[in-house]
């Protein structure tokens, strides 16, 4: 948009410049024409003045020569000389000659007028020749010649002819003057119109430029306002997004801390539970429902000589057996259930012969009941047997028996 406006403004200024150049060119040309017209007017007035001067000089010379012939007044003779310049015998030495020379020169570029001037020169020359002849006759004292010259003179007729010719030239020059005045007026009017038209067109073009600039400024302001609004919206979105991210980050941090705290609490609790179990000096066996060992405490390792990995997932009966001379094993059940043989099949053990004695334990776990202080024996890695008192607790998870904990208090060792 910016480049387009500048291009338009440049085009407008090109038009303005072109109009100014045209107006200046036309004005200078018309000024030159006016100056030429003015020269020509002066020239025309000069021609009119000179031909009228010719008439005056002829009349003055004629009158003076006649007066001199009649009166012999030297002043009249001087006037005649001044008018016709006849002292030296040359036409161009008097007023008449000067007028004719100037008129002839002024009309040299105007053939029609020039011909008439030449004719005037001829007529005026005759009057000058007559005056010279008359003066010469008078000076010689030849009165007869003077009389004959005066009698033959057609001065009045010649003067009328000169007067008519002067009037004609004057009339023609005045007509040309009127035509050229009209042409000069038209040129001046044309110049005036050209200048005013140029001024008006330039003002219109300047108005167009002003409108373009104003429109461009308004457009720029609107664009700036839109940009500002867009920036504000963007800033608001960035702020909102930043706040969202900060909030999400805060939440994430809190969750992370909470998870780390939960993990350590769990680890702590687990370690604490292990600590409790491991600190018990009695033999603790954690059993599955199938009566396999799933965990032991260090007292078991100490008593049996087996490492934990050797006992885990092994049958409980491989290490511990209830005494088979226990009178009325069923009677030892705190809450007697169905007959043992009918409830649990025999679980074979490493020790083989004592296997059937484990049944009361399985039976109690299957019913979720405790057994307390049963006489039993613990056999170690070397086959030594130690008497112990066995207590079994079922492990309940949400009211469901998932295994059991057997605790044995060792009473004495048997060789």
């Amino acid at each position, binding site marked *: 948009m910016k480049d387009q406006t500048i291009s338009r403004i440049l085009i407008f200024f090109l038009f303005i410049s072109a109009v100014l150049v045209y107006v200046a060119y036309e004005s200078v040309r018309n000024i030159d024409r006016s100056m030429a017209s003015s020269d020509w007017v002066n020239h025309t007035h000069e021609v009119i003045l000179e031909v009228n001067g010719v008439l005056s000089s002829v009349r003055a010379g004629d009158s003076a020569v006649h007066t001199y012939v009649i009166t012999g007044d030297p002043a009249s003779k001087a006037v005649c000389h001044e008018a016709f310049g006849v002292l030296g015998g040359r036409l161009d030495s008097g007023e008449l000659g000067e007028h004719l020379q100037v008129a002839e020169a002024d009309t040299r570029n105007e053939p029609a007028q020039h011909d008439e001037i030449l004719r005037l020169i001829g007529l005026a020359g005759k009057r000058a020749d007559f005056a010279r002849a008359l003066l010469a006759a008078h000076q010689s004292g030849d009165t007869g010649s003077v009389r004959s010259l005066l009698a033959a003179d057609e001065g009045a007729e010649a003067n009328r002819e000169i007067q008519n010719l002067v009037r004609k030239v004057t009339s023609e020059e005045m007509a040309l003057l009127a035509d050229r005045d009209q042409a000069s007026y038209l040129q001046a009017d044309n110049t005036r119109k050209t200048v005013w038209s140029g001024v008006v067109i330039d003002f219109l073009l300047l108005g167009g430029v002003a409108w373009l600039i104003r429109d461009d400024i308004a457009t720029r302001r609107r664009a700036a306002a839109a940009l500002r609004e867009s920036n504000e919206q963007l800033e608001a979105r960035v702020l909102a997004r930043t706040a969202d991210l900060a909030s999400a980050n805060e939440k994430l941090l809190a969750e992370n*801390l*909470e998870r780390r705290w939960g993990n350590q609490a769990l680890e702590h609790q687990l370690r604490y539970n292990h600590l409790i179990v491991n600190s018990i000096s009695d033999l603790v066996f954690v059993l599955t429902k199938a009566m396999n060992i799933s965990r032991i405490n260090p007292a078991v390792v100490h008593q049996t000589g087996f490492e934990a990995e050797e006992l885990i997932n092994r049958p409980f009966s491989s290490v511990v057996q209830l005494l088979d001379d226990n009178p009325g094993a069923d009677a030892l059940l705190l809450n007697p259930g169905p007959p043992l043989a009918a409830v649990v099949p025999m679980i074979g053990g490493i020790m083989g012969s004592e296997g059937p004695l484990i049944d009361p334990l399985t039976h109690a776990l299957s019913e979720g009941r405790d057994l307390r202080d049963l006489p039993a024996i613990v056999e170690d890695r070397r086959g030594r047997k130690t008497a112990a008192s066995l207590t079994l607790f079922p492990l309940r998870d949400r009211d469901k028996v998932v295994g059991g904990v057997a605790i044995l208090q060792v009473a004495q060792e048997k060789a």
Partner: protein
Amino acid sequence: MTAGSDGTPMKKHILIVDDEANIRDLLEEFLTHNGFRVTTVPSAYEAQQTVKRDAPNLIISDLQLEDSDGLDMIEQLKSTLPKTPMVLLTGVLFDPKVVRETLSKKVSCYLEKTSSLARILHEVQRLLAV
């Protein structure tokens, strides 16, 4: 909340006594993040020294410490700071009846270490009235 020398509000000071470093670190990070000034020590002896030097607005203590019992330490600190809330935060799970009838008379609040941080923060804010 009182103001500091630079005009900013002074943060509440919490003393954490626990023999386990990871618990001290986690609690310090969490409570600091929530706008508290936290001091952590591993033993009852260092807790006594800290209390003398920079009295806290609240004390959180484990039950089993390196050199003492948390409840004994709390009893001793009460003589110095009778109005300061004392929180027992322990992994030893007490019977609700024991908590209600015994512990509640000795400490301002009993929390298990299995409690969430949000719960711990809630109790801290409640006791400090912030």
